[in-house]
């Protein structure tokens, strides 16, 4: 009797222990068997150009996975897979070994299966052989705008360009749901419970026009090859808004095959990440300082020699000949270094630096692309008279192409510096649109001064070194610049960077453009490398935007 009672008490105690004391433990054990938590992966947002053409889109392609411990006949499966995936004899043997391991997991046998391969695998209907959908990024235009777009790495993280800068917004965030499932692993009806909502990635519309981008890239590539140059960049921007219409570099890469890139430098966008001593294309900016301050007018004249002595240094103009009496307009037309040193002396170091910073040099423009450099402006306290003199013709100061375009854009835009940007519109999955508004950074010059400098730059194209940048029927404002390249602190006599910066139509500009050809071998001067390319692209742009001629 006592034994039975004892057993009963023990039973009650055990039940109490299992059901009351260890309730939570056993509940979680049961939940582990019946409850599944699933991740609802957010879909990455897509990227379109200004006209809605896709630039970066998603593509779901299956991967082939095999679970070895679910395979009944490993030899048969390996043989069949070898046929479908065209495996070599060694690969087939390796697969056979892997399948015999009885493991719970082995890495996917192949990613991005073709339609034919998918059909064949489905027809075989083998146990333990699975087709798992995987998301991939596809860039339909291949190389076009690759350094603007960046790429998506194998971990699904955006690198460089838009993909890098807007990675969090494009990626969204995963949600989690909890479901009960039956013995076969199927979800039970109505058992889904949302633990956290999935936030889908946003779509982006760029300010980039893929047609212009394509044209510019093609022309730039041809020019780089023609001049046997090391590379080049072109930026086309709307000076009234700061919208970047095209931003091309060469060499470039195909983001669909980013893993084939040998030189990681190709991933960078030189138009925002690289800086160089701009040379003579910097002169209109220095001239604008003097004009805005009322120190000179376009018609102010002075007699200039072939050189000028500053402290212990003698500074020559590029042709080492005296231009004699020149107006300020002619100083720009002749690209006279000596005249520019004189202008710089009139401006003075303090005001020179004040305008440098107003133009945005020495600081990032804030463009919405990753990897932007602030350039290099030497601290004012370290600047000598010679340094100031050389800076007036674009030496001893390093700027990025996007800084240069923004600064000259201010001249084109009545003195107002605009913040450059490449994302025009952000659209959420539920259709909410956020349009990015143009942003005036600051007023750099008076509209009168800006207009005067624009007219002087027109004169450079009409009468100076920039003739090849002209477009018949239009007033084009511009300036050439053949910059020397410092190597270990000394300018290399065999290396130059040809540049041309300008805008058109000069007095109601549709675009401001910089063309830069790095270290061409077949020509020394920007007049015959960057200027003709500028003219060719300008002609295309004026036609493309249906801009009627502004001169008879």
């Amino acid at each position, binding site marked *: 009797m006592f034994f039975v009672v004892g057993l009963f008490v023990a039973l009650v105690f055990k039940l109490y222990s299992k059901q009351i004391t260890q309730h939570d433990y056993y509940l979680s054990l049961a939940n582990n068997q019946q409850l599944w938590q699933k991740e609802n992966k957010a879909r990455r947002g897509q990227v379109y150009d200004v006209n809605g053409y896709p630039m970066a889109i998603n*593509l*779901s392609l299956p991967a082939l996975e095999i679970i070895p411990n679910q395979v009944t006949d490993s030899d048969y499966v390996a043989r069949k897979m070898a046929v479908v995936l065209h495996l070599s004899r060694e690969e087939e043997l390796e697969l056979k070994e892997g399948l015999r391991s009885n493991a719970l997991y082995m890495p996917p046998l192949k990613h991005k299966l073709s339609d034919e391969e998918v059909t064949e695998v489905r027809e075989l209907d083998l146990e333990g052989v699975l087709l798992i*959908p995987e998301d991939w990024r596809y860039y*339909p235009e291949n190389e076009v705008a690759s350094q603007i777009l960046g790429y998506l790495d194998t971990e699904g993280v955006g690198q460089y360009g838009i993909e890098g800068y807007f990675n969090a917004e494009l990626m969204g965030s995963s949600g989690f749901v909890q479901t009960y499932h039956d013995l076969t692993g199927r979800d039970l009806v109505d058992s889904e419970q949302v633990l956290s909502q999935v936030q889908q990635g946003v779509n982006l519309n760029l300010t980039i026009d893929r047609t212009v981008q*394509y044209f510019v890239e093609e022309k730039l590539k041809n020019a780089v090859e023609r001049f046997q140059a090391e590379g080049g960049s072109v930026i086309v921007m709307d000076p009234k808004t700061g919208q970047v219409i095209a931003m091309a570099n060469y060499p470039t890469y195909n983001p669909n095959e980013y893993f084939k890139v040998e030189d990681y430098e190709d991933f960078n966008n030189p138009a925002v990440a690289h800086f160089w001593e701009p040379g003579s294309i910097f002169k209109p900016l220095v001239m604008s300082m003097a004009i805005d301050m009322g120190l000179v007018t376009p018609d102010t004249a002075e007699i200039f020699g072939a050189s000028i002595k500053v402290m212990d240094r003698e500074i020559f103009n590029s042709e080492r000949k005296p231009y004699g009496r020149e107006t300020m307009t002619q100083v720009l037309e002749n690209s006279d270094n000596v005249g520019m040193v004189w202008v710089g002396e009139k401006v003075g170091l303090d005001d020179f630096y004040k305008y440098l910073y107003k133009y945005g040099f020495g600081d990032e423009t804030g463009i919405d692309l990753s990897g932007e450099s602030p350039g290099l402006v030497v601290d004012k306290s370290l600047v000598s008279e010679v340094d100031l003199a050389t800076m007036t013709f674009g030496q001893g100061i390093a700027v990025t192409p996007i800084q240069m375009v923004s600064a000259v854009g201010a001249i084109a835009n009545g003195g107002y510096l605009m913040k450059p940007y490449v994302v025009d519109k952000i659209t959420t999955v539920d259709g909410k649109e956020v349009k990015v508004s143009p942003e005036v950074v600051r007023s750099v010059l008076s509209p009168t001064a800006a207009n005067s400098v624009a007219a002087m730059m027109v004169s450079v194209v009409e009468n100076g070194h920039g003739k090849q940048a002209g477009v018949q029927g239009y007033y084009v404002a511009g300036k050439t610049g053949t910059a020397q390249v410092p190597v270990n602190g000394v300018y290399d006599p065999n290396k130059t960077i040809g540049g041309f910066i300008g805008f058109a139509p000069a007095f109601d500009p549709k675009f401001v453009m910089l063309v830069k050809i790095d270290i061409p071998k077949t020509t020394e001067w920007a007049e015959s490398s960057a200027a003709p390319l500028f003219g060719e692209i300008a002609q295309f742009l004026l*036609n493309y935007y249906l801009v*009627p*001629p502004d001169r008879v």
Partner: protein
Amino acid sequence: MIQNVRIEEMHSGMKRNQTANRFALGPVSLQFVTIVLLALFSLMYLLQNNQMTTQGYKIAQLKNDQLEILQENEKFQVEAARLKALSEIKGKVQNMEMESVSSVKYLAVQK
């Protein structure tokens, strides 16, 4: 199980005979009814559960179909994007022997 019971009762000074049906269950009947009810409920539960499972399976199947259709749709979109790519268009146009525009003229229209 059902017994006829004769009830006599006085009402308003009248005597009336009434016959009423009275429901009563014996222990065996009770057991029988309980078993039948249990069986019925079990059957209903089984049917409902079965239906739920079938519906669940159908939903899973439909979700799968939906996913496949969406993937198919996405594939077409990707293919359309590929065909619309400028390099692709340029390649096709080259075979069409088209002339490029040599000059553009604007006409002044008086309003």
